[in-house]
């Protein structure tokens, strides 16, 4: 199936029928919810008080409901009126805004304690109108977002970059706006479970959290040991002390034995088998 971004602009792709899927499809709901939970984990919000969050590309408010569940207050924005209408029907707690993120975020400076966005950022790389320039839209988005966030707040974007270039374009423009941070990849070895989170910090430098890879501590240990072993064996081979000479008597006899077991016609062993030859001039 081709990517949604290739089919139509977001305000048209998320039509009434597409929006309804988000209300009835339990698989979609569980995926959205689990990704929001992970995003919240990465946001690392203060436990002292409820936070005021922005949900970019909130859609029908599935991710927002998860935020409400965790006791936070949120404002959501989306470009698809059908998705917002669906959210209105479901009676979500947060406020909904009909807004295009490529036109910048219109909030006063220092408003939000955190920003969440689930499966939306890749849409910004599209040029759906003749006057859309993805790079400009990304720059506008990230600069206005940076100012709308409290110093030290984090923004976590789960998204599906199509190519490495797209990923680079997005991170570059975020860094240009003043953000620090980077990508967190969960389950990098799985095609289906692999999820990319862009984790940005406004104002305060911090280390990027580690991605989940679905391996227990023991497995990780095993992996690292295997690597050490291999490096060791490589180094011994270089000096050639452990390895016997090629076609030594043992090697020849082992080979003949193998042949016999396979039912091949093998000469009998004698005192001449694999004997040393006289040196040649």
């Amino acid at each position, binding site marked *: 199936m081709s990517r949604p971004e290739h089919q139509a602009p977001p305000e048209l792709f998320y039509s009434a029928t597409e929006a309804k899927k988000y209300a009835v499809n339990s698989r979609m709901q569980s995926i959205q919810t689990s990704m929001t939970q992970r995003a919240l984990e990465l946001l690392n919000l203060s436990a002292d*008080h*409820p936070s005021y969050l922005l949900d970019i590309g909130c859609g029908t408010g599935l991710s927002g409901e998860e935020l409400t569940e965790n006791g936070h*207050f949120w404002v959501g924005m989306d470009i698809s009126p059908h998705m917002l209408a669906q959210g209105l029907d479901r009676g979500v707690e947060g406020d909904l*805004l009909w807004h295009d993120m490529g*036109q910048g975020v*219109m909030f*006063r400076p220092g408003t939000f304690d955190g920003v969440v966005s689930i499966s939306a950022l890749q849409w910004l790389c599209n040029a759906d*109108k003749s006057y859309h320039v993805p790079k400009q839209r990304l720059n506008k988005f990230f600069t206005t977002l940076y100012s709308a966030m409290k110093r030290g707040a984090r923004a976590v974007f789960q998204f599906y970059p199509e190519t490495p270039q797209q990923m680079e374009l997005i991170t570059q423009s975020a860094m240009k706006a003043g953000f620090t941070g980077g990508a967190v990849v969960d389950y990098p070895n799985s095609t289906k479970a692999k999820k990319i989170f862009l984790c940005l910090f406004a104002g305060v430098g911090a280390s990027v959290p580690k991605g989940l890879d679905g391996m227990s501590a023991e497995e990780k240990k095993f992996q690292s040991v295997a690597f050490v072993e291999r490096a060791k064996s490589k180094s011994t081979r270089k000096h050639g002390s452990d390895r016997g000479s090629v076609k030594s008597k043992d090697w020849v006899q082992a080979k003949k034995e193998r042949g016999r077991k396979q039912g091949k016609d093998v000469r009998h062993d004698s005192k001449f088998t694999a004997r040393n030859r006289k040196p040649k001039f």
Partner: protein
Amino acid sequence: MKLLTHNMIQCHVANCKSHNFPLKIVLAEENSIENEECEMNPDFIRHMLPKLEWSALKNTVDSLGLGNLPEKVPSPDNIPLETLAVLHHVLLEVDVKNCQLVCPNEECNRSYPVVQGIPNLLLTKDEV
């Protein structure tokens, strides 16, 4: 649209850089304000107090006739229960359903329609 959100948004037309806050609320009909009761959360209100633009909030609340707020910002640590209740009602329960949000900058005067409680903040090609 809740008044908390209204207190946070400003006009974002490209040429409109100053005096673009707060957006004036011009109500469409008499009954375009609804109340949706929700649970009081004092911690959240205390947390949001420093972020609020108090004079803008007070003006809006007064012009819509929603309640009495003190002239000055109460300090988050000892905020009277009455004020807390009014703030909770005004910020989180009042829901403006149908109105126009008009930019206070006279050169701009852009108006954003609010329909069914959702503000349409999309700009046209020339305004970006």
